[in-house]
């Protein structure tokens, strides 16, 4: 067995979900965050109403948001946004300090 599935109650964008795992005498803590980035919004990346331009703007927005995000956190998963969603959710895990 290598993984445990832990249900996590809903938490806010600025809140962290922290997990502490104890294996024998060793305690390992994990910190996760789900962050919402702008996805389909009007901003400086918007450049036309057609689907190709909108799609490119969404990707550029997401790429820039990810690349400028706090480097102490590593990206674990990008969730699929719902249709017509204005924001996209991304799961991060805090990096361990060396």
């Amino acid at each position, binding site marked *: *067995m*290598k*993984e445990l599935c832990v249900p996590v109650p809903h938490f806010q964008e600025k809140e962290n979900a922290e997990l502490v795992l104890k294996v024998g005498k060793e305690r*390992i803590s994990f910190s996760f965050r789900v962050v919402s980035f702008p996805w389909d919004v009007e901003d400086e990346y918007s450049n036309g109403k057609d689907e190709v331009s909108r*799609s490119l703007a*969404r*990707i550029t927005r*997401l*790429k820039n948001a*990810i*690349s400028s995000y706090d480097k102490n956190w*590593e*990206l*674990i*998963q*990008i*969730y*699929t946004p719902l249709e017509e969603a204005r924001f996209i959710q991304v*799961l991060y895990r805090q*990096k*361990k300090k060396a």
Partner: protein
Amino acid sequence: MIKTVDLTKIFRTDEVETTALNTVSMEITNGEFVAVMGPSGCGKSTLLNILGLLDNPTSGELYFSEQEVAKYSERNRTNLRKGSIGFVFQSFNLIDELTVYENVELPLLYMKVSGSERRKKVDEVLERMKIVHRKKHFPQQLSGGQQQRVAIARAVVTRPKLILADEPTGNLDSANGEEVMNLLTELNKDGTTIVMVTHSPTDAEYAHRIVQLFDGHIVTENIKQVL
């Protein structure tokens, strides 16, 4: 080992045009273990099929060992594939009418390897995959985990430089999935380059680098931190 420049794949029907890959540029070096992640429909499998020379890009460049192969003829692509690339699929893709031994032997037959050499190589790889005791069985007589071990044996029997794995644990329970990931890690430690498509963050942890695809674009690449 592999380099893509502005790789684009467009699927067209009479009514719809879908851009599965949109100007994807990436580089994979010898000995790397790369995971490609992203939601369904983001272009992961299309990318893997193109890297494995199973499909052609609509535009862009694809280099394999510094040779431009995107416009290779079908015959050249088949030759390159046979000697250099092994595939592992989610649904195993074993031939039900052939035994375990015969399934693993097949790529060697295509490469016209002699009978004695084939026996030696197949026995060696079945031993390594801990499935030699089932060599006379047919795929349907094996568990999912055993079938995937046979599929990996078939992928590595020709000692390819590159293994492409498409959701290799997708049809397995967690114990068998872990075993398959350990096998892939072991092969990578022996020098085989691995590119694996996965939905699973747990499986992606085994890789050195994770490439996140979204709507046919690479949105980020990150080197994994060992926990």
